[in-house]
């Protein structure tokens, strides 16, 4: 009888502890999330404080808030690192089938041809997806915080457009230098 129930053990190579791997990924993603929030709030608080005169807490005349992109920048560093670690994890899962035996021969001749790939890629892809979704949600949340708590007269127009332009130039620049 073919089992339909998918458990953690079905998402890692046979003999590896699925719960431990999953716990590791959840811990890494959660830490990245906490780091991202703390890092953003710290940077935002610093930029926000700079708008005011430190002695009487009045807005400095003509002062402009630091652009959103600069505050957001590097808050997702741990997410990027966690997402990057998913690649070695997937490679390790595949390599595991060559360790001490050639269980890859068994996995490659299973009638269910996706079982090998599910076991190698499922958790790394879930980790990667979780990182991506949380980065998007955090960015939206941070942007809302940025717009809501920054005095309107200090906001430069076109923040969202600037964000995408900078993100794109950083990505292209990163690729160029890579």
């Amino acid at each position, binding site marked *: 009888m073919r089992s339909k129930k998918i458990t953690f053990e079905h998402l890692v190579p046979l003999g590896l502890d699925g719960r431990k791997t999953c716990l590791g990924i959840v811990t890494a993603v959660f830490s990245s999330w906490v780091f991202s929030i703390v890092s953003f709030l710290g940077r935002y608080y610093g930029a926000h404080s700079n708008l005011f005169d430190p002695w009487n807490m009045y807005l400095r005349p003509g002062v402009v808030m630091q652009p959103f992109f600069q505050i957001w920048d590097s808050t997702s560093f741990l997410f990027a690192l966690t997402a990057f670690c998913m690649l070695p994890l997937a490679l390790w899962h595949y390599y595991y089938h060559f360790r001490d035996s050639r*269980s890859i021969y068994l996995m490659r001749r*299973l009638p*269910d041809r996706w079982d090998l790939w599910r076991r190698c890629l499922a958790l790394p892809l879930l980790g990667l997806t979780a990182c991506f979704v949380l980065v998007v949600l955090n960015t939206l949340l941070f942007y809302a915080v940025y717009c809501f708590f920054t005095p309107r007269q200090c906001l430069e127009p076109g923040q969202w457009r600037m964000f995408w332009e900078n993100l794109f130039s950083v990505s292209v620049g990163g690729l160029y230098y890579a």
Partner: protein
Amino acid sequence: MLEIKNVQKIYYPKRNTALDGVRLTAAPGEIIGLFGENGAGKTTLLKCILNLLSYQGEITLDGEPVTHKNIERISFATCEHSFFPNLTPNAHRDFYKMHFPHWREKRFQALLEFFELPGNRALRSFSTGQKNQFEVILALCQGADYILMDEPFAGNDVFNREDFYKVLLGILEPNETILLSTHLLEEVEHFVSRAVLLRTGKLIGDVSTLDLEEQNKSLMDYVKETYRYEPDRVSRALERLTEDEEDAS
């Protein structure tokens, strides 16, 4: 019927031809010994049958190409071992049962018992002989019609191997076909029904053991004859060596 038609395998980038136009047919119930020197292409042929390697030519199972749809009809036991060392025999049974609908539970239990293999101990703690035994047990219990074995007894003692041949002959059903690659010619002579010889990727001999018996020839004689083995090769080499040493002194 397993049909291998004009199969060619070239390993890149060195362009080593491992199989060169191999043609072979394995009918249900046959026990075929696959013989040849190291590098003759025995392992490569078995891996091509299982689609573990890409190849040119055609390999069919009852007229259909071997794919994930009919791969369950072929099992594989290899000296490299294809089990998971961290798992127990019972965990392997559960995994095989999940994937192979014709799993032979009764045979599995009987063989584990016969070879006195513990069901609840991780395979990494088994001896090499026990690991080989378990590898073959898995291949026999998958419920496959075609059982491919690549040097399955490398590391087992002679008594153990004898036991295995006897057990195999006792439990195999008429529709089960075995393709056994081995160097142990004399041992499997009475076990196989047909001998296939490979040399540098080419099929150079294919004979039934019944024919050999009628010709009053042993399998070893047939192999030596087909390989054009020179019996005085060793003595000539030794003579040359001793001549060189005398000249040097």
